[in-house]
């Protein structure tokens, strides 16, 4: 096989990468927002319960979670398809990280913002939605974009649960034609092409928001 054929053969798997990443975002974004806000607002036992749920998904190794959900759960009578497992595990794993970004951004706001909103007669909910969240979103955006790169990297793990993403295809082509140097260089190049532009956007936003946030505290 020529280098071009190998590259295209591996590249065909990118649609799986993008599909898994997209489905995972359907889990990650709601989880990050809901649990991040809940952790920010709750106190006492409620907070402990929220933190436990976040930590289960955040602190476990994604590869271990994938294996357990894909290979072990069928033994307990709960067979899930590879796409479902991949989207759920990777999504909630990333969502766990994201929730900490949400909570951190909310907690970093000046307390005066909330106090002023409440003094103007807003309810706690109104203050959260109209005053705190819009400001926190600015803080979160660059970090979320960087997390997107992490998510794309994590999708390489789905090759282990039978999905034909670029990593899976590279392994297959490797077994047919023994050309590891070309194959794995192409594979690295494909992930670089996917991730590097997003990382650049994240860096640029980071710099812009760092400059914009000179509001006196």
């Amino acid at each position: 096989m020529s280098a071009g054929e190998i590259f295209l053969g591996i590249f065909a798997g990118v649609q799986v990468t993008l599909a898994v990443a997209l489905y995972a975002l359907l889990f990650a974004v709601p989880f990050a927002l809901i649990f991040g806000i809940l952790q920010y607002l709750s106190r006492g036992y409620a907070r402990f319960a929220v933190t436990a749920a976040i930590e289960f998904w955040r602190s476990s190794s994604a590869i271990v979670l994938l294996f357990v959900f894909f290979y072990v759960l069928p033994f307990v009578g709960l067979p899930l398809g590879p796409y479902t497992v991949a989207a759920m595990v990777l999504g909630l794993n990333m969502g766990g990280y994201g929730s900490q970004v949400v909570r951190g951004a909310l907690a970093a706001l000046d307390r005066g913002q909330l106090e002023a909103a409440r003094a103007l007669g807003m309810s706690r909910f109104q203050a959260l939605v109209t005053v705190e969240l819009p400001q926190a979103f600015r803080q979160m955006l660059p970090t979320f974009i960087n997390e997107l790169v992490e998510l794309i990297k994590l999708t390489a793990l789905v090759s282990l649960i039978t999905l034909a993403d670029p990593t899976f295809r590279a392994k297959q082509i490797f077994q047919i034609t023994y050309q590891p140097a070309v194959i794995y260089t192409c594979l690295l190049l494909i992930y670089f092409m996917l991730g590097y532009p997003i990382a650049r956007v994240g860096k640029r936003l980071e710099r812009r928001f760092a400059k914009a946030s000179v509001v006196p505290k």
Partner: protein
Amino acid sequence: MKFDFAFALSILPELTRASFLALAIALVSSLLASVLGFLLELTRRTGPVADHAITFAIDSVRVTPLIVQLYFVFFVLPYWGIVLPALVVGIGCLTIHYSSYLAEVFKAGLDAIPRELLDAAKALGLRPWLTNLLIILPLVLRNSIPAMGNYFLSILKATPYLSLIAVNELLGTAFEFASDTFRYYEPFAILGAFFLGYSLLIAAAVRRVERYFMRSLGQMRR
């Protein structure tokens, strides 16, 4: 399927051995990645060419998956005639991958050092390497330890990746037992317990070191 204590007990010694290996891999990689990350960051500050070259290298390593890097090194080096043990490949990849993250951590830690301290060191006639060792390193460590701790935990959680290149760490060993006996509960319950235990251990150690640095450097901050 019920939890079988006798079976769990019978596989415990082997899993304990595997868990020690995982912990050792994590500790060695954390240490090497910290050193390499710090050196990368120091080199990056020597000039614009070094800055651009190293930043590009760091970003390239950061945006590609660790599992692909592992496959690359594990399959391509032997093709070129360089045969390394899987353990060395694994530790090497973890080190390089996470040094790219730690370099960014050290960058933030270095940027946070007040300029006056460096000027004072220069005025006292300290040589550059002594300034690095005595002034910059302790301050950077103090600034960076919480973030470093997070990456040390990430490294521990990344050790199961090495099972893919046939290093017999926890996940590989647990899976071997599971596929031999078709009993999945016990190996994976024990695996989870080990990871939880070691994570808490590392987190506690990082907090202690953090407090030590805060106390010993605390009086300087006035």
